[in-house]
């Protein structure tokens, strides 16, 4: 399968995506960086750990990340899925990963990822974004600049009360 690299936003820059998402029913590629579902990780963890290339896991927003706390060190990236932009559970998932579980590598927003939520995603711990199909990635980049004043600490500790 010839892969045309998609573009994503990573650390506020548009870059080529160096990961591919492998569906549950597709064969694992020999090499390269891949995302697999949490179910596939659970059923094929030995094969996945033995591969070369980076490994990412995709979490549904209903997962309590504390359940996979012991596995976090094996993941090079974690994607959290937004089934629809107005389902806010993934914000909590990302914050728990970053703040509670101390996960430091990439947390990627996937699914219905839109400009007007992207800043909130970043403040909850996401640092990579696969913008929804059909939406302009350049426009999405503007979402980071919309609001610069933050009244409360999230994963960032740059809230206004500390600056006053």
């Amino acid at each position, binding site marked *: 399968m010839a892969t045309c690299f998609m573009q994503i936003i990573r650390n506020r820059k548009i870059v080529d995506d160096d990961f591919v998402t492998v569906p549950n029913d597709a064969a694992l590629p020999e090499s390269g960086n891949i995302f697999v579902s949490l179910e596939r990780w659970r059923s094929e963890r030995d094969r996945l750990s033995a591969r070369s290339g980076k490994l990412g896991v995709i979490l549904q927003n209903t997962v309590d990340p504390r359940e996979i706390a012991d596995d976090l060190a094996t993941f090079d990236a974690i994607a959290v899925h937004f089934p629809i932009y107005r389902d806010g559970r993934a914000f909590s998932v990302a914050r728990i990963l970053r703040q509670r579980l101390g996960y430091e590598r990439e947390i990627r927003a996937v699914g219905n990822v839109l400009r007007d*939520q992207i800043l909130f995603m970043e403040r909850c711990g996401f640092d990579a974004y696969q913008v929804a199909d059909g939406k302009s990635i350049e426009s999405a980049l503007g979402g980071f600049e*919309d*609001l610069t004043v933050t*009244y409360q600490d999230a994963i960032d500790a740059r809230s*206004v009360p500390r600056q006053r």
Partner: protein
Amino acid sequence: MYTYDEYDQKLVRERAAQFRGQVERRLSGELTENEFKPLRLQNGLYLQLHAYMLRIAIPYGVLSSTQMRKLAEVSRTYDRGYGHFTTRQNLQLNWPKLEDVPKILDELAEVEMHAIQTSGNCIRNITTDPLAGVARDELEDPRPFCEITRQWSTFHPEFAFLPRKFKIAFNASGDNDRAAMKYHDIGVKIVDRDGERGFEIWVGGGMGRTPVISKLIREFLPREHLISYLEAVLRVYNQLGRRDNIYKARIKILVNETGPDEFRRLVEAEWEDTKESSLRLDEAEIERMRGFFSAPDYESLPSSDELLGQIRSGDGALARWARNNVVVHKQPGYSAVTLSLKEPGTPPGDLSDSQMDTVADLADTYSFGEISVTHIQNLVFPHVKTSELESLHADLVALGLATPNIGRINDMICCPGLDFCNLANARSIPIAQEITERFEDIDYQDDLGELALKISGCINACGHHHVGHIGILGIDKRGVEHYQLMLGGSAGDDASIGKILGRSFPAEEIVEAVERVLKTYVDLRESPEEAFLQTFRRVGEDPFRDTLYGDVLYADHSKS
């Protein structure tokens, strides 16, 4: 009151610019209506029956005269010359145009106002006692904690897309709750325990189609943990609240489904990990916030309790107004005055642009430029010299805002109903007006005493019908507007939910039904001092059911 610094000012400016961009992207088609909808809602913009409606935030109900003048100007320029004060201490404009809304937000930003999070599935305006800072019965002014909570909740990145809306209220006056705290998603009650000041945390109250009184989740929370604890409650709700059914998505349903004990366990487990984080409030921040709400420059005066008593003991209009619309004040020589927005002929809570301008002028003359909005849809001048009551009364009479009906049957809460709202099943304002006219005799209203009548045009309960001593709910019965009557509700610390006693009434019979309830109460009360709610609780529902649905009027043969 709270005043903006450069950060607050920048935030509201950025928000206005962001919304302007969102409107442009909607108009260009880059945003679909579905994508735009939650964005406009989080800015208080609804699409109603006839037009857009913009809900402007009035944090915990506090307004300056400058802000009131701006509201007058905005109502005049961009709307039809009036605004509607709501049960959550906000102001609604019923007729703005979408393309004008960014301009309105710019204008509001000039006077430290906005429409942030006045709708949508996020944390809404923080509300409290309209007498905060002046009430004799308060432990301390709750507004510094309201402002801390307002800032924490504004654009909170984790809690902008909750399962459903989320409302927080503060009460600092013990049993005399004037903020309907127990009908909020979170109610925070300021309490003392063993000499330490802190909070009781009540969770899972609400009205709507499933009225629920909140549960006490934490008996004592030290002050420094307010934000970390709120955050723990919100996180549990964000993760576990139902998203499959909009009618079961409020936190009250989650608390009922898990049970308060399990809910408490989940929250405490979450909180255990965050209570010592940067969310901990330091004393300096609390003190800084208190500084914004320090007392105005009161004159040093002797107690005016005796003077107020004298004014009240007269028999004219001033005396009655002073009895019904004026309350004692913490500061010697001062009183707090309620301006009734329940003038016969005007929908409850409505104020015209010219009235707003004059209210602003009077606030400058009599009340240090301060005004507060009550959840019963009236206004308060919190700091009036008792010696100036007579003069203020004359000015308010001229303005049509001195109707002496506070706490009386005509001091109704009423939702906009089918005249404006696209959720309503029935009209509510015309019923309110009919009741106002039927019971216009103020002697009769005074004889009835303390009575809270509340009207909603549909089961979403914006008019708080469940907690009215007398509640009226508009329903659609085979295409015809009908009204369900319920009795015995209370929004206070003694919270109770009204009971439906029988079939609903068509529009032409509902006011008559209310009148029969009132006659029954007057006949059954032990003394004129026994208020309607006390009588109802003492005698129970049977006599009222008899009078409403029996063959004979109970009142006709109970006493001669």
